[in-house]
C-alpha cells in the first residue's frame, strides 16, 4: 500500500540528518504505516472528545482545522522550500469561493467540492509559483502581498458572481444518519475537518520524507549546488508553490463551510499576515508547528477580547489587541526560540529523555 501512495525510496539511512528518525522511532517501521496509525488514533480520540464539548467549543475547534491545513502548506513552502508568501489568505479565498460557487451552481457531493477547492487553488498557486520562481526575498513578499491586497476587491468588482461585500451564503452539510439523530452539522463538520487534517498531515509528512521533500530542502539550502546536481530549481519552486496553494485552498473551502458565509472581509491582508505570524510562532517548517499556529490563531483573539473586556479597554484598542499580541509574540519568539513553540516543545522532550537516560 505504501508503494502506491509514496514515491519514496526505501532508504531512510540517506535522509538528511535533521529529518532522520532517531532512537526508538526506528522500531515504528515504515513512516507511512506509523503516520496512518497515529492519524487514526487521533481521529478516534477527537471523536470521543467532541462528545464532551459544548456546541460553541466544537465550533471553535472546527475553526482550527482550516487554519491548520493552510498553515501546513505555508510552513512547507517557507520552512522547507525557502519561499515566503504573504498571499496565503488570498489563496484560501480562492478555495472558499470555489466551494461556495460549486455549492451554489452544481449539486456536487461534499468530497468533490473539497477536492475542487484544493485543485483550483493549486492551479492558481502554480501560476503564482511561475512568478515566484523569478523573485527572491522582499520582491517575492511584495508580489504575494499584492495578491492578498487585490484579490478581495475582485469579489466586490464582480458582485453578481462573487456576492460583493455582503458575500455569499454557504449551507452546512447535515450529519449523516450513522452518527445518530442528535449529531449536529457543527459536529459533523468538525469530524470532516479532522479527517482532512489527518489526510493532509499524512500526505505532507510523507512528501517531506520523499525525494520531492529532499529537493525542496536542497533548493532552500543552496540553489547553485542544487542546479549543478541536475535538479531544476524553478521547477521545484513552482511545485512547492502549487502544493502549498492546494493546502491553502482546501483550508479555505473548509473555512467557508465552518463560517456558513464567504465575504471579502474574512480574507483581507490581515488573514495573510496572521497566517505568516502564526507559522513563525508555531515553528516554521514543522507540521507540528502548524498545529500550534492554528490553535493560536483561533484562541488568541478570543482571549484578547475577554482580556480587553476585563480591562474595559477602548473599542479601537480592543479591536486590534489580538494583532498586537501576535506582533509581541512574534518578536519574543524570534528572539527567544527561533523554531517557535514547536522548538520549545522539542527542547523540553529532549531534556526529559536525557533525564530519564542518565540514572539508568
Amino acid at each position, binding site marked *: 500500500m505504501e508503494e502506491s501512495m509514496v514515491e519514496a525510496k526505501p532508504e531512510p539511512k540517506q535522509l538528511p540528518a535533521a529529518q532522520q528518525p532517531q532512537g526508538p522511532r526506528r522500531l515504528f517501521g515504515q513512516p507511512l504505516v506509523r503516520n496512518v496509525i497515529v492519524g487514526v488514533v*487521533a481521529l478516534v*480520540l477527537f471523536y470521543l472528545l467532541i462528545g464532551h*464539548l459544548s456546541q460553541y*467549543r466544537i465550533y471553535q475547534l472546527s475553526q482550527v482545522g482550516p487554519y491548520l491545513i493552510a498553515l501546513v502548506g505555508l510552513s512547507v513552502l517557507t520552512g522547507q522550500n525557502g519561499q515566503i508568501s504573504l498571499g496565503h489568505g488570498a489563496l484560501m479565498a480562492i478555495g472558499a469561493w470555489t466551494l461556495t460557487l460549486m455549492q451554489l451552481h452544481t449539486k456536487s457531493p461534499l468530497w468533490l467540492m473539497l477536492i475542487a477547492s484544493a485543485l483550483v487553488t493549486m492551479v492558481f498557486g502554480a501560476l503564482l509559483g511561475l512568478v515566484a520562481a523569478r523573485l527572491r526575498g522582499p520582491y517575492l513578499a511584495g508580489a504575494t502581498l499584492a495578491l492578498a491586497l487585490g484579490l478581495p476587491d475582485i469579489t466586490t468588482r464582480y458582485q453578481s458572481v462573487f456576492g460583493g*461585500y455582503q458575500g455569499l451564503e454557504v449551507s452546512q452539510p447535515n450529519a449523516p444518519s450513522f452518527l445518530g439523530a442528535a449529531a449536529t452539522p457543527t459536529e459533523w463538520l468538525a469530524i470532516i475537518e479532522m479527517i482532512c487534517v489527518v489526510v493532509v498531515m499524512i500526505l505532507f509528512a510523507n512528501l517531506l520524507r520523499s525525494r520531492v521533500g529532499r529537493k525542496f530542502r536542497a533548493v532552500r539550502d543552496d540553489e547553485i549546488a542544487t542546479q549543478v546536481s541536475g535538479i531544476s530549481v524553478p521547477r521545484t519552486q513552482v511545485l512547492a508553490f502549487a502544493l502549498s496553494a492546494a493546502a491553502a485552498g482546501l483550508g479555505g473551502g473548509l473555512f467557508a463551510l465552518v463560517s456558513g*458565509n464567504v465575504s471579502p*472581509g474574512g480574507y483581507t491582508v490581515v488573514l495573510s499576515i496572521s497566517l505568516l505570524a502564526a507559522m513563525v510562532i508555531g515553528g516554521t517548517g514543522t507540521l507540528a508547528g502548524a*498545529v500550534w499556529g492554528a490553535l493560536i490563531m483561533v484562541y488568541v483573539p478570543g482571549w484578547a477580547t475577554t482580556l480587553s473586556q476585563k480591562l474595559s479597554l477602548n473599542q479601537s484598542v480592543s479591536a486590534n489587541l489580538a494583532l498586537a499580541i501576535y506582533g509581541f509574540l512574534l518578536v519574543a519568539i524570534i528572539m527567544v526560540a527561533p523554531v517557535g513553540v514547536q522548538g520549545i*516543545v522539542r527542547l523540553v522532550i529532549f531534556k526529559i529523555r536525557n533525564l530519564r537516560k542518565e540514572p539508568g
Partner: protein
Amino acid sequence: MGESRSSLRRGFRVIAVMAAFSLVAAACGSSSSTSSSSGSKTSGSVANTASAPGITPTSILLGSHQPLTGPAAPGYSEIGPAIEAFFQYLNAHGGIYGRSVTFKYLDDGYNPANTVQVVRKLVLQDNVYAILGGLGTPTHTAVVNFLNQNKVPDLFVASGCNCWNEPKVHPYTYGWEPDYIIEGKVLGAYIKDHFAGMKVGVLYQNDDFGGGGLIGIKQMLPASQIVSAQPYDPTTLTNGLGTQVAALQAAGAQVVVLFTIPAATALALLSMAVLGYHPTTVSSSVSSDPTTLAGLVSNFSKGKVGASALNGLYTLDYLPMSSATSDPWIQLFLKIHSQYDSKEPVDGNMVYGMAMAYYFTLAMRAAGQNPTRQDLINAINSQGATWTGPGLVPLGYSATQHLGFMGAEVLQLNGAGGASVVSPDYVTNVQGPVTTHASVEGPVPSWLQ
C-alpha cells in the same frame, strides 16, 4: 488497540501535539456554564422559572452584534450603549416580570466574517435568549440562517433590508426600520409631489440597502426622470466619493437621492461643495440624524465645514427627532441618557436604540411571565401591529408579515442642527400604493415613569 497504545508511548511528536490539542479543548470546555436553579419568587401567585435559554428567575440575557469599530462605527456605535441604558433604567423600574435585562453587544467591525463569529459566541456560548438589534445588512445576512436554524428570536434587525420580512423562510427574524424599498417609495412619492419633472440622480451603497432603495424610487418615478445611478462600496469609502458625485453632476441631476450610510452622506455633501454642485439633496432615514452628520462633515473637512453643509437636506424619519424636547418620549430618553448614557451624544442613534429597547420590552411583557422563545414569537405575531410608543408610523408585524415601521415622514434639515417636518406620514408596504396617514405616536406608559 493494545498495539496502537504501545505505539503511542513511542512518542511520535504528532501525537504529543494532538494530546495538547485535546487538553486545550477540554480545559476550555469545562468552563461552560449551565442555567441556575429556580427559587426566587415575585409578587404574583406564579413563580418565575428558567423558562428558556437565557432566562432565569431573576434575569434575561440578550445579545447583539454592533459596529463599535470599522467603517460603520461613526454614529452607529452609539446604538448599543443606548439600548443598554434603556434596560438599565427599566431594571431600576422593576424590570420585566421582576427580571432584570442584561444586554450584551459585541463588536463585529461591520465585517460579515466577524459577525459570524460573535453571533455564534452569543448563541452557543453565552446562551442568549434572543438577538436584539443586530446591525447591518451585509453583516446580519451572514447569520440570519444560523439564528433561525437554532430557533433564536432575531428581533428588530437594525437594517431596512426587505430580506428580514420572510416569515416562511425566517420565522424567527423581524425587521424594524421601514424597509429600503418602502423608503425609496416614500422618497419617490415626495419627489413626484414636489419636484415633478426635475432630473433625478441616485447615489447608492452597492448592496441590498442601496439596491432596495433604488428599486423603490424606480417604482414611483418614470425611468426617463432618473438620469444617473452611481454605486459605491463601503470598503472603498477612504477614497472619497468624488468620482460618483462628478458623474451625477455631469448627468445634470437636479435632485440627488442618497442611499448612503452617514459617513458616505457626509463625504458626498463635501464633494458637492468642492465641485460647486448644488442639487436638492434627499436622503434615506439611514442618514437622517443631523447631529451625527454634522459631526462627520466637520471631522472629514477638518473643521472647515459644519452643520451648514446640511442646510436644506430632505430626509426621512419614523421616530421623533432628538431635538424635539417637547415630545414626552424624547423627555424620557433624555432622562435615561443623563443617568445611564451620558458618555454618548444626544442624537438620532440614541432615540433609535432606546425606542427599539422599548418595543422589545412590550414584546417581552406580551410573551407572558415565563415565556419560551416561541411565546415571544407568538406574542409579536398576534399583537405587534397594535403596539404604540415613540414610533410615528404603525408597525407591520403579523404571522404573515415581519415588516417593521411601514412608512415615514419627510423632514427638512436646517443649517443649525434642527429639522422641520414637511409632509404627513407616508404609509405603504412593498407592493401596495403609498397613502398618507396621521401620526400614531402613543403616550409613555406609567410603568416607565
